[in-house]
């Protein structure tokens, strides 16, 4: 957890490419999925793309992940080494900042990665974390690693 204190997150470039690819494919709608890895080491091992079940998904500014999907993902994880440590989603034609909607629905202790997809290109990626339920989310500095 020390790295969280320093507000740094190491992000593997391959994972980054996968997320931005999904963001581009879903454009102009939002893509979403979960980050899988080890929260103690703040390490993302892989991602799992999930369906955006929002009825308003066509508007391109809402996403909802069905709780049933989360259960499916969790039951297929390696019990001791893997767990869901965060959520990623894209903002089509908008900045990679948390919207009010995002911030209100944020689960404390989970990593949030937001991708800004503009004209089918990934323009920016940012990561956020809320440590306590009623605190504001803080932005993490991303270090891209291989």
């Amino acid at each position, binding site marked *: 957890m020390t790295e969280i204190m320093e507000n740094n997150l190491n992000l593997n470039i391959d994972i980054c490419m996968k997320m931005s690819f999904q963001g581009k494919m879903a454009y102009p709608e*939002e893509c*979403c999925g*979960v980050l899988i890895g080890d*929260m103690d080491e703040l390490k993302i091992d892989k991602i799992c793309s999930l369906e955006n079940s*929002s009825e308003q998904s066509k508007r*391109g*500014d*809402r*996403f*909802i*992940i069905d*709780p*049933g999907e*989360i*259960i499916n993902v*969790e039951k297929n*994880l390696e*019990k001791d080494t893997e*767990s*869901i440590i965060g*959520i990623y*989603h*894209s*903002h*089509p*034609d*908008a*900045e990679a*900042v*948390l*919207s*009010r*909607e*995002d911030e*209100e*629905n*944020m*689960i*404390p*202790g*989970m990593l949030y990665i937001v991708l800004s997809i503009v004209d089918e290109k990934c323009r920016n990626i940012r990561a956020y974390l809320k440590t*306590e*339920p*009623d605190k*504001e989310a803080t932005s993490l500095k991303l270090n891209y690693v291989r």
Partner: protein
Amino acid sequence: MKVYISSTLRNYFGKNAEIETTGTTIQEVIDHLTDEYPDSKKILFDEKGSLRRFIRIYVGDEDNTEKDKWYRKIEGEEILLLPSIAGGSPRESIISDERRKEVALDDSEVERFGKHLMLREISVKGQKRIKASKVVVFGAGALGSAVIQYLAAAGVGTMKVVDPETVTLENLQSQVIHSQRDLKRPKVASARDFVRNMNRSIVFEDENTKPEADNIASMIEDYDVVVDCTDNYKTRYLINDACALLGIPEVFGAIYQYEGRVGIFNLDNGPCLRCLYPAPPEKGLVPTCAEGGAISPLPGIIGSIQANETLKLIMGIGKILNGKLLSIDSLNLRSSILKVDKDNKCPLCGMNPEITTIEEFDYEEFCGLKEDENEVPVEGFTPEELAEKIEKKEPLTIIDVREPHERAILRFPEAIVIPIGQLERRMKELDPDIDTVFICKEGKRSILAINTLREAGYKGPMYNLKGGIDAMKDIIFSNEGAWL
């Protein structure tokens, strides 16, 4: 009963995936869990005790999150605590893409706004949005000066300024768009000159009118954002209500002495001013800005932040004070951001709104501006009448209820000084057989003083100096020349 905890919530349940609990209903199971894992209480419930938005409770594959299902007996099934993961992207800007594409920047504008175009977040797209935007600024006073100045410099396409007042000498301490030669001119006329001198291509509209319930809607209709730079509660609530009902976001700003506040209300169904302040402070409790004073650069700081928020809102960039209130204390250099929650019971923007039109709401009464009909009216002297009584040396007690720092500016000769808070205790100093005149700066707190004494049982004749010492300034006494 077995409870499955999603890995997204496990940190608050001792990292356990499955917990065996006693209890046969969801309510009992939750009570058990929160007893066993006290940390889990804050993740499950908010301060008011409601289940948080991101928690879902399933029994088998059935959603049982609704509280009415919490008391049902569950047998042999598994309870699952799951997250509801949701979110959305921010609407990019309050200026639509169509409107942005309709405007173009010419060569001189590319040069003029070069420093904006250099910024990645703003660039041509943002500058076009600024040019396409239509903004209303209420108040061309201290806050308004900073707002008008920077919005004009940034190249806002259409700006309307509403202010009923004229420029006075005391305005020049902080209202930097007006100058000495503007004295006695309407503030909107002076603001127009300022904007035209800066950039002639800005469409400037002015209304030298006081905003009231019957004209406010027409003042803001078809505009993108409203900036509140006014200094009184009635107009603030009027602006807030009109904005909420017409769905126009509002950038609120207020200053008092050394402190200032900025916030954004009525944006995307966010909270409104009434969610933050359901009612104005009681009459007489808080002096107006004109009575309380303010340090000269403070409105510049607060107004500049208002202008900055307005531009960010127009361009849809960065983090804005939506549903937040920024407080700045310029004396001790402290600042803080307070979260403003939307009030579901808000009479304006809540679930069951009571205020649906502006015309039917009584703002005068709400803000304590209406004379109470049951209250005995306060009699008063005009400055001329009081001057005459002083000249004729009629028996008279004059009580100055102002604060010490106000008296340091201007002393009223022969007045007894009793601050409002001490009036009741020092009632004996008054002679009920002769007339007593109460004075303050504007003649409002003195009415409060008279009512306070009346309630305390004082029976002697009491009079108010109408308009206060401010109105007395022009009176010249024959024996002393200009003594005030």
